C-alpha cells in the first residue's frame, strides 16, 4: 500500500495541518486537502473495496483524527440496524485500536481513531494507524455488508 519501512522518524509537537500534510507526503499518500489545509482525504484500493480515509488535524485539542469514512450506511429504521449495532459494539470490544461510530442523522458509520499528539506525532504512527484501520475495514467488510444487504 505504501512503504512504511523507508519512512523516516520525525517528531512534531501537536501537529497542525501543514505538519500532517508533511507526514502524509513522507508516506507517499496521495490526498485531497480542504481549503483550510487541515482536513485530508485519501482513497485506498484494497482487496474487497476502495476505502476513503480522512485525516483531520486538531492542534488545539492536541489530536489527529484518522477515520475510514463512509464505511457503511444504515438508517435508523433499517431492519438490520439493531443487530448491526450489537455486532459493532462487540467488534469495538475486540479492537485494541480504533472503533466503530454511527451518526444516525446521516446514517454514516465510520471506523475512528483519535491520536493524541501532546507528545508529538511521526509518520510511522500515522502510517501504521492507516494500515491498521484499513485492515479492520477489510476484515469485517463482507460480514457487515451481508448484514445490511440481506
Amino acid at each position, binding site marked *: 500500500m505504501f512503504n512504511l519501512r523507508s519512512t523516516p522518524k520525525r517528531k512534531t509537537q501537536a501537529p497542525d495541518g501543514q505538519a500532517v500534510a508533511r507526514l502524509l507526503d513522507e508516506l507517499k499518500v496521495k490526498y485531497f486537502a480542504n481549503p483550510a489545509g487541515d482536513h485530508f482525504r485519501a482513497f485506498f484500493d484494497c482487496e474487497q473495496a476502495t476505502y476513503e480515509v480522512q485525516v483531520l488535524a486538531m492542534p488545539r485539542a492536541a489530536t489527529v483524527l484518522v477515520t475510514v469514512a463512509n464505511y457503511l450506511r444504515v438508517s435508523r429504521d433499517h431492519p438490520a440496524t439493531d443487530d448491526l449495532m450489537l455486532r459493532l*459494539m462487540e467488534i469495538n470490544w475486540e479492537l485494541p*485500536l480504533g*472503533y466503530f461510530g454511527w451518526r444516525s442523522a446521516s446514517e454514516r458509520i465510520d471506523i475512528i481513531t483519535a491520536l*493524541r499528539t501532546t507528545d508529538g506525532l511521526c509518520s510511522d504512527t500515522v502510517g501504521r494507524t492507516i494500515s491498521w484501520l484499513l485492515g479492520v475495514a477489510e476484515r469485517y467488510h463482507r460480514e457487515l455488508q451481508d448484514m445490511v444487504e440481506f
Partner: protein
Amino acid sequence: MLGLGRGRSATPGPPDLQAVCKFLDGMDLRYFVDGQGKAILLSFECDKADYDMFILVDQQHAFVYVSLARYLQVPRDHPNVQAIMTRLMETNWDLLLGKFEWNPNDGEVRVAFTFTTENGMGQKALGAAISAILDVADKYYIELHAILEP
C-alpha cells in the same frame, strides 16, 4: 479532578509499567499493580458514581490501554439491549477521546481509550486521557442507566 501539575516530558519510546506508575505518582493518584505486574488499578469518586479504572501497558506493541471496568452491565438478553447499543454507537460518534465497547459474553460495557506510544507518552497526556474518560463516564451515566431501567 486530577493534580496534573507540570507535565513531565514524554518518555523517548513506548513506556513500560514502571514509567506509567511514575506518571501516576506525579499526579498524586493512588493505585495498585496487579499480582502479575501487567495492569494498574485505580478507583475514582466522581459526581455521578464511583469508577474502577485499569491501565494496561504493552511496551512491546507500543500501546497503553486505559479503561473503566464494568461501567454498564448489559446481558445479551436484556430487554433494552438494542436500544442501549444503538445509543452507545451514536455516542461513539460524538466522542473525541474514548470509546464504548461491549463484551456480549458477560455483558460488560467499558469506556476505554488506547494510546499509541511509538512517540512516547507524557504525564500530561495520560492525565488528560484519564480526566476525559471520567468526564465521559459521568456525562452519560444517568442517560444510559435510564435506558437500562425496565
